[in-house]
């Protein structure tokens, strides 16, 4: 649980540090962007980046779980 909380905290801090208002795990928009995500040309790349970050987290978590067992 400690490790999970630490990971979430690190992600939140990295999100807060980003100047463009996006985060690895979900907050996509610059505050002035439109409501419909499919209108935004950069959205697929952002979603794929977030998926890649999530995959990295998943692999890291699985490795940690195997090691701790």
């Amino acid at each position, binding site marked *: 649980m400690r490790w999970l909380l630490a990971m*979430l905290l690190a*992600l*939140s801090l990295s*999100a807060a540090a980003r100047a463009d208002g996006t*985060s690895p*795990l*979900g*907050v*996509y*928009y610059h*505050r*002035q*962007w*439109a*409501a*419909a*995500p*499919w*209108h935004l040309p950069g*959205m*697929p*790349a952002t*979603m*794929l980046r*977030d*998926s890649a970050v*999530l*995959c990295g*987290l*998943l692999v890291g*978590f*699985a490795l940690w*779980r195997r090691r701790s067992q």
Partner: protein
Amino acid sequence: MKKLLKIARLYHVEMARRQVYLMAALAGACMAVVPFAVTSFGMGAFERASRDVCLTLLGFLSVGLGIGLGCSALAPDLERRTLHPLLARPMPRSTYLWGRLLGVITLLGGVLLAVGAVMILACSIALRESELPLLLGVAACWLEGALLAAIAVLVGTRFGPVVSGVTATFAWLVGGLSAAYVDAFLSRSNQFAAGMVYALQLVIPHFQMFHVKNALVHRDPLSPAYVGAMFCYGLVWLVFVSYLADWSFSRRDL
């Protein structure tokens, strides 16, 4: 793998006994009537109104069914203690959990596909044009419902069905709020609530990504890159939440 599929099949048999398919038949019958009912009002843009009403109903069905099935995936076996004889066999807990999850997700997919097929057929007949693009809306609804079911299962590994249902509903409500809405309305009336929404959206999936209803209703072109990224995003989140549920269930003191 064989045991996992067997657990999923058992889940389908259990749900058939609970007459979930009857509910799907009722929803399908409703979908068959809706496009004709909307067109009979003689509204100007009835094509769009028909598509809008049908996809909205399908969205509510997927969310309700996803949360309902997710809440009841583990709880009956835990309450009736039928889980213990199952786990006394040479079968790891993770096989049981992934089997139940697979059962929930495939059942949801089957119900949505059947209801969606009726909806597309009824819309095509009522509007006299092919409404096959609505299939993408059905797939997006399935992704959303499956993710909500996985969240409900994750919470259900620790808490009862009521708490997991409320938590999944809360995640859906907060995760579906758009930044435009939060900035335009919420942050002006309640800055604390707006800050909380942004903080929560850092760690929960963005359900708004799956809300392609307006694009389908107005026949806005959806780029293949967006559709591919949406599926990738939804499936990765689904696996991630399911893995967290597996981890939580493996640590639970039964």
